Each structure stands twice: as C-alpha cells, then as structure tokens.
C-alpha cells in the first residue's frame, strides 16, 4: 500500500511537469493578451508605447520555453512568482483563498457521499418503491441541473422567501471578523448546493451497486443463514455495492472543482476557483501554472485515494506493485 502511494507520487512528478508546460503552451497560443488584461479599461486609452512598456515589464515578450523554464526553476526554489492580475505574489493569492475553497469542497463532498450513500442504500432496499422512485427521478433531474441555477434557486428560496440563511459571502457583509458561527452559517447554502449537485452520481452508483449485490449469492447465502436484514444490507450488500462508488470519488474531483467555480461566483465565496478563471482569461502565467499544479495534484490524490479505498474495501483487489 505504501509502495503504491510512493510509486504514484514518483509518477506525479513528470505528470506535473508536463501539465505546467502544457499550461504555458496553451496560454501562449490563446488569443487573450496578458497586457490588455492587465491594463483593463485603462488599456483602452493607453498609448501603444505605454502598452509596449507594460509588455516588457511583465516579461510576456519572452519566448514560451524560456518563460516556462524561469517559472519552473524559481517554483522549485519556492518562489511561485507574482500574479499579474492580482498584483501580488502567487503564494499570497493561494494562501488567502485556498483554505476557503478546500472547506467548501470538502464539506460538499461529505454531503454528497454521505447523503448519496444513505439514500442509495434505502432506495436499493426496495427497488421500485416510492422512495426509490422519488429519489431516482430527483437524481436524474439534478444531473441535468447546472450548479449555478441551483444556487440562484437556493438563494431565492432560503434567503429571500424564508430569510433563514444568508445569501452569500463568507460572513455577513457588514462584519469584518471571521467567526466560526458566521462562516458555518454562510457555508450551509454553497456547500449544500455544491454537494447536492454532486449527489446524483453517488446515489445512482450506490443504488445500483447495492441492488445488484442484494441479488448475488453471498447475500442470498447470508439471508439463508438467518442473519438480520440490517447485517445483510450494511455488512454484505453495501460493502460490495460501495466498490463502484469508490472509483467514483477519484473521478468526481475534477467535476467538484468546476462545480465549485460556479458556486463560488454565485455566493461571492472568496475561494480559489474564481481566481482560476480570472488567471486563465488574463493569461496570468504564474498564477495559472500554480493553480493547475494544485488542481492536477488534487485529481491525482483523488485517484490514489479511491484506489486505496477500493483495496481496503475489497480484499480481492491487490495494490499495484
């Protein structure tokens, strides 16, 4: 198990290297002009000379490979460079926002996994029952509903109609201090929306997995041996029904990141996702590369995690290597 984790970590190094180069190459080939993005509206009245000077100052007139190599070598020395769009060091941008995004995504992920598993087991117990029919059709509907739209709907209902939850931000708009209670109450809607938008996949996988397992020989055998329905369901069926879901955990990570992006925008959540879009459209090389490394690492970690869980849940599966 440790060897597998180690091998994957080793494998991640060239992957991350290739990915950062890819980011630089794609960004350089993109039609967006970093100088224009940097100048913003001021760029519309700036003289060409002023813009040319900016281009030189920002170092974006350098060739692609040189820029990438510069970034990579200083990143390895611990200097992530300066973000041109945020006007501050990349490390500061990430430090300011990362924690909030992780909090939001982790909470949402938990909501999705726990609720998805719970509902999936309940639905599988009586396939075709009223609970199964209700939740399944809701799940298919949710699969098609964009997180953005769900967010607006949640704000309209919980913040406006019922006035029970805040509509956005990390804390109340007038409050300066970040307290636990404030953040917790402001986290409810965005995390619920993001979690619920991810829920259908977990629900449908668990439901199918558990329903299939219930029809399999080991379960029938367990029942025949007179084990309680509870033990059969949770001990046998869920255990094998969970397996497909564990692979899902890894593959949902990218989706979670893109979902967070929309949810953060709707709820003015000061996370890293919004900065990612800005970095991309502004061709902010340093920030974009750093964020891509983080996202890639998250995806690789997600895959590793689901493989490890799979191995733990099913003894028949060997860890590679």
């Amino acid at each position, binding site marked *: 198990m440790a060897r597998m984790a180690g091998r994957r970590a080793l494998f991640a190094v060239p992957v991350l290297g290739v990915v950062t180069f890819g980011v630089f190459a794609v960004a350089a080939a993109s039609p967006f002009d970093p100088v224009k993005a940097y100048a913003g509206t001021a760029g519309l009245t700036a003289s060409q000379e002023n813009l040319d000077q900016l281009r030189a100052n920002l170092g974006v007139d350098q060739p692609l490979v040189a820029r990438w190599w510069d970034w990579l070598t200083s990143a390895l020395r611990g200097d992530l460079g300066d973000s041109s769009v945020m006007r501050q060091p990349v490390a500061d941008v990430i430090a300011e926002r990362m924690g909030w995004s992780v909090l939001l995504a982790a909470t949402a992920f938990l909501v999705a996994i726990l609720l998805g598993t719970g509902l999936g087991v309940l639905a599988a117990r009586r396939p075709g029952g009223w609970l199964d029919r209700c939740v399944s059709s809701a799940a298919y509907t949710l699969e098609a509903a964009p997180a953005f739209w769900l967010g607006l709907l949640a704000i309209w209902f919980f913040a406006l109609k019922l006035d029970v939850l805040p509509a956005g931000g990390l804390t109340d708009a007038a409050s*300066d201090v970040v307290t636990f209670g404030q953040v917790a109450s402001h986290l409810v809607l965005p995390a619920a929306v993001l979690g619920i938008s991810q829920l259908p996949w977990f629900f449908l996988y668990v439901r199918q997995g558990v329903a299939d397992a219930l029809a399999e020989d080991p379960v029938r055998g367990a029942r025949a041996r007179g084990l309680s329905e509870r033990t059969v369901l949770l001990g046998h069926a869920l255990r094998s029904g969970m397996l497909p879901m564990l692979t899902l955990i890894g593959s949902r990570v990218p989706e979670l990141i893109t979902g967070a992006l929309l949810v953060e925008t709707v709820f003015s959540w000061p996370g890293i996702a919004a900065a990612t879009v800005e970095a991309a459209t502004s061709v902010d090389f340093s920030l974009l590369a750093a964020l891509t490394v983080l996202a890639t690492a998250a995806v690789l970690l997600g895959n590793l995690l689901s493989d490890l869980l799979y191995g733990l849940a099913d003894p028949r599966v060997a860890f590679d290597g």
Partner: protein
Amino acid sequence: MTARSIRVAVAATMATALSLTAAACSNPDTAKSGSGSGSTSAVVGIAYEPDSLSPLLGYGKDGNSKIFDGLLALDADMKLRPALAAELPEVSADGLTYTYKLRQGVKFSDGKPFGAKDVVFTYRTILDEKTNNASRTELDAVKDVTAKGEDTVVFTLKYPYAPFAQRTVLPIAPQHIAGKQDVNTGAFTTRPVGTGPYVLTKWSKGEKLSFTANPHYWGGAPEVKKFTMAIIKDDDVRATRLRSGDLDGAILPPNLAKGFADDKGKKTYAATTYDYRTVTLPTHNKVAGDTAVRRALDVAVDRETMVDAILNGDGKPAYGPVPTDSEWFTKGTEREHDLAAAKKILDEAGWKPGKDGVRVKDGVRAAFPLWYLTGDKLRQEHALAYASDAKKAGIAITAEAGTWEVIEPRMKHDAVLAGGGSPADPDFDQYTLLKSSLAGDGFNNMAWYDNKAVDAAIEAGRKSGDKAERKKAYDTVQRELVKNPGYTFLTHIDHLYVVDDRFGPLTTQVEPHDHGLASGPWWNVEKWSTEGAGGSKK
C-alpha cells in the same frame, strides 16, 4: 403551516442535514443577523473588483478614492476644489508651471505626516516606466515635479495643457511605506495607507472591501463609521441580496432596478454620465469612410427610440462625446432622426439602390460589418438597432460579436460598437478619439479619424488656459463632427443605483464610462448624514 413553522421546519431540516457534516454548529436562524447594525454603517453591492488599491498602479486616478486624497478633488458639480492642496494651483502665464501649496497638519492614517515629498514620490513613481501603470499616458504632459520646501510642489509641463489641474485629483501615496517595497506587487497594493476619510480594514478578495471611518480625517470624521463594498459580480444575485436586506445599496442594470420602483424603503438614483456608446466608422473602409455614408447614417439612426427601448428611458441621445446637458455641448448640433434626408444624401452622392435594396456605387456595395463585445447585452442591442436603422436607408450592416482579441486586428477596416467617456474635461475624450496622429495607437482614435480642422481645434482646446477660447475650440470640433462624422454617437447611458431610504436624499456625480469604486451615490459617503435615521430599520 404558518411562516414561522415553515421557518422552524426548514431550520430543523437544515440542522439535521448539517449534523451529518463537521460543520453542524450553528442554528441558521440566529446566525442571520442582517447587515447594517445601526445607522452608522452602510453596505453596498458593486459589480467590479479593483485589481489593486495602489494609486501608483492607477487606482483612483479620477479622484474620489475613499482611502486616499488627491491634491484636488471634484465636487458634486464637477468643479475642482482643493483637497491635499490648500488652494487651487497657481498657473504661470505660459501655462507651463503649476504650483500647489499644500495643506498643513495632514497625517496618513498610520500617524505619519503628509508632505511635499509624498506628492513628488507619487508622481515620479507613476511616470517611471518600470511601474506597471496603464494610465501613465494621462500624465504625458508632465516634464518634472519638484518639492519647494515642505509645503510647495511645482509641476513643469512639456507643453501647455489646460486640463492639467483635473489630472491632479489622483491619490497621493505615502513614500515612507510604498517607497520601501516593490511598486508592482508589494503589500501596499492590497493594504494601502492614505490620508482619506476611510481606512481599509480588510480586503477579502472576491468577497468584499471593508472600511472604517478615519477619526482623524482632516475634512472631519465621517458619520457613517463602517462602510463595506460587497463584490457581487452577478446582477441577479446583487438584486436578490439587496432585496433580502443584506445590502443597503447596489448598482443595478435598468431591468433589475425597475423591480425596486415600488419599494417604499428604497430610492432609485439615475446618475447622469459621459458614458457614450458609439459606432466607429473607419476611414479605411470604402463605405464607412465615405463622408456621404457617414452623414446619412448620422441622421438615419433613431436615437430617441434607442434611449426608450434599450435604456428604458434612462439615458440621452448622443451627438458627440459631450452629453447634451454639459456646459461644453454646442447647442444646435443635435441631429433629428430623418430617414428621408439620409436617403437624399445617399442619392446625391451616387449611392443608388441595387436589386436587393442595398445601395451600390461604382460597384461597391454599401455594406460593412459592425463588431460588438461578446456578452455585452447593451452593446449588442445598440448594434442591432443601428443595423436595422441603417438598413432602412439602404446600407447593409452586419452585427457580429467578438472579444477584443478578435475585434482589435479588424478595427482599421470594420466598424466597432465602442464605449467610453470621462467627464472631468472635454480634452480627455476628444483628443484620444479624434486626433489624427493617434490613429491606430492602441485603442485611441479607433476610426482613424482625420480632419485638419478638428486637429487644430483640439490642439487649441488643450493649450489655451482661457475658458471662452476653449469653448470656441470645442464648438468647432462639434460642428465639424456634423459635417464629417467619423463616428455615429448613439446614446449617453445613465447608471442606476438603488439605495436604502434611511440614508436620506443622496446625490450622484456625473460619472465616467468606467464603473469605478467611487461611482454611485456613495461618491461622498463620508458626507452622509445619519441624523434622524437611527433605528428606523433593522
């Protein structure tokens, strides 16, 4: 089920859901405390987040930056008044030297005194080409700036530049802080220190900017003690949060502002602006470059209908960069919508209707593309209305959407639905829009307009220190634009704000194209009175 029981049920459901997660820790009902606790705080929703709060990088260059002061400031009527300068500058007879006496006893919010060295530092840093300031061109006239003793600053100019004093509203940064770090990325860009009425307490990027009143402000401590700008990019979310009481005020597009018209607790303010929408008619295009076509389009377009249909009446027809209610507007240059006249102009110039109704002259079809910025609904509607008006006169304009990256390489030959406008001085817009030597220089003079009479007039307008003479020069420009319009100016757009009633009747300044942080009824939040408003709401 009563509203209350629904509320309890929802709270209970949410709490149950939450108990599954580690974040189950607060009862949503009590966590919701509403915004403004008392009348001494205000929370407003804005659509744009600044990139930087450093004046050295361009923040607050048009004045009114809350955290900072300029040497001068603009009042409600856009007249210059002294701020960090003790009085308006003394201008030498040749217009080349501006001398500012500084206000005494002013301190930065960290307690250190403000002095002439800070002014010199600020301007010299902005003029330094290593500083990434995209607005440096605006100070092009400055040759040098020097301190004469502790309380006097002297600017010397390369050429006489009448509106120079208007440029000195830009905020002054403290040398003892900003001078010690990387000007482009240092901590000062996000944690500024200035002399202004408010002190930045926190900038939670992507979420909000929080300010607290500066009790030692030289202009008197503001009554609104806490001021928060929540950054909410989505228009619908902003309107929703305003309605939910989370915000005390917000900028809104016309269709959403309309929803608050019947709300007794809120007032809608329409700020008049210099924010124009115009169509560039590039000289290098065989059709758009023809003076007859330009003149025909100028009268074929129905500006009144655009104001009514696109702007819901919140705006004015535009006949040039100067709005019709400005003191610089030349009366009598308004153009009525007159389709018959447009057709006559085209007929006389030899543009004869072809088979498909589109006019043709010497084998050239009267057709050209008009680009607008993707996703900008207002520009799209203007472009489509313009194309439809032009079609009635026999000119086929195809509206096409693109990003600036797509549009820019085409600007020399294709028309663009452009916007702009800065109110402080007529020179600011007209020089960059019309001067022939600036054709194709970045986004300046996008239409490649070339008119000797206009060139001479705008030169005269910026050189002369005499207001009557300047007015005459800009009258000439506006009359020339009737004879040979290089652009079809369409509308000037009002900016709409909805603000809680408890702050009393507020004012707005004439606003530029740019939605800066200082725009809106909160342009003078430091002067807001909270008298008699205490405890009226919340």
